[in-house]
């Protein structure tokens, strides 16, 4: 390890791994390096498979400063001998190199720094002890109730709420506890308050114990009533909605039926008129939309029209539908929502020359209007 291997040692190593005589190898190696040197001067490059490329690189002249005298020197332009290892050599070196040190390629998880930066005030250390005790007490209560298997945590909360009005003191205490939890910074520093807190905590413990004892008595009445009330409310709401819906649809008014008939007749009357109408009427895009697209980079009205209508010429209609939020068809802000209108099939028929001429006309109009190319 970390040995320096000279040429004779290399010759020994190579002869060990081959069937040739030592003299042959010696001649070969000395000649090899001589040849490389010679050829580098001549050709400026020597390529050896399995080892790499020796190459001369020209270095431009540059200014430098003599360290001792401080005088400026110009380092003349010269050639530099460089070596770039071959892929094979790289592979050999790294295959075994990796065995020594394992590669680690893993994804770094994205860390949300904002959460971490929340500064914890030093004052909290004073308050932490009692707070921890309270937490422990609470956990005990929860644990005991869960072990009973009958009372759920939600019920406990309700019962606690119901218990509090019976004796007025615990409510106050719990409020104070919450305050201390919410903003510990606001609490004063002096030890008197600390003592006061400790007293409070003891009182709290007692209250909690009382609550614990109370909890063991099955007292399901309030929750039962609450549930019943909620159920009734739910039934009423469901019934009401059902009734309302039924009134709307299932039991139709005679008047509304008549209206419906009239509408249908009108529609049927208008249909033949529409079919007879010439292209100009059809040209107005129908209100229903094919799709909504948010404009992103690389998007283009041409592209959109080819995507939805099959030809770039029909971008005119897309622009028509979005005139209000687009200043110019060539300058659309990223993020604007573009409505793609549902068009009549005759309007966007590529084989129909009339439709094409129509679109072209519109296009030339827009080109003139917005000073676009052509």
């Amino acid at each position, binding site marked *: 390890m970390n040995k320096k291997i000279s040429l004779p040692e*290399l010759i020994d190593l190579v002869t060990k791994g081959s069937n040739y005589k030592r003299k042959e190898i010696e001649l*070969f190696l000395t000649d090899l390096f001589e040849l490389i040197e010679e050829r580098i001067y001549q050709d400026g490059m020597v390529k050896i498979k399995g080892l790499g490329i020796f190459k001369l690189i020209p270095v431009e002249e540059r200014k430098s400063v003599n360290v001792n005298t401080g005088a400026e020197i110009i380092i003349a332009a*010269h050639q530099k001998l460089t070596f770039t290892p071959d892929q094979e050599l790289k592979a050999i*070196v790294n295959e075994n190199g990796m065995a020594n040190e394992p590669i680690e390629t893993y994804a770094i998880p994205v860390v949300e720094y904002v959460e971490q930066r929340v500064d914890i005030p030093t004052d909290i250390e004073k308050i932490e002890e009692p707070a921890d005790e309270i937490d422990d007490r609470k956990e005990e209560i929860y644990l005991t109730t869960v072990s009973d298997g009958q009372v759920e945590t939600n019920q406990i909360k309700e019962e606690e709420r119901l218990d509090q009005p019976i004796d007025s003191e615990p409510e106050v205490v719990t409020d104070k506890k919450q305050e201390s939890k919410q903003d510990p910074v606001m609490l004063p520093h002096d030890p008197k308050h600390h003592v006061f807190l400790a007293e409070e905590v003891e009182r709290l413990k007692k209250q909690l114990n009382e609550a614990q004892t109370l909890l063991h008595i099955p007292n399901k009445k309030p929750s039962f009533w609450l549930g019943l009330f909620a159920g009734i409310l739910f039934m009423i709401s469901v019934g009401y909605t059902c009734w309302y819906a039924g009134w709307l649809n299932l039991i139709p008014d005679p008047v509304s039926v008549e209206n419906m008939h009239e509408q249908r007749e009108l529609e049927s009357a208008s249909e033949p008129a529409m079919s007879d109408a010439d292209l100009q009427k059809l040209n107005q895009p129908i209100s229903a939309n094919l799709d909504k697209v948010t404009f992103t980079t690389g998007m283009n009205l041409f592209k959109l029209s080819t995507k939805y209508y099959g030809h770039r010429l029909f971008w005119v209609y897309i622009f028509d539908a979005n005139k209000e939020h687009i200043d110019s068809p060539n300058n659309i802000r990223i993020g604007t929502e573009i409505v793609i209108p549902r068009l009549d099939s005759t309007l966007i028929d590529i084989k129909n020359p009339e439709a094409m001429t129509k679109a072209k006309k519109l296009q030339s109009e827009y080109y003139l209007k917005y000073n676009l190319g052509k």
Partner: protein
Amino acid sequence: MNHKELVKELSKRLDMDSEQIENMLQITCKQIGCQLVENNQISIQGFGIFDTKRSNPRTMVNPLTKQRTITSSKLVVVFKPSALIKEKLKEVKNYINILLR
């Protein structure tokens, strides 16, 4: 100079088959690689030193997925030309410049 030209030239000088020369070259290259893996330097007098350096691991960002990954450190083969060659290169400089033009 190409690999083929090198092998031809060597076989001419040593009076050996080009196949033999090729075989020898392969063995030497492998041997050099093996020695380099074991952190050994190979110094050839009047020519230069083959050495290895461990490249630092670096974070890489996939441009498509923007996922950050750490590439492992690798062994890089380094060649330092000897002082003799450097001196010679200074003398040869003009000659090569003429050739390059």
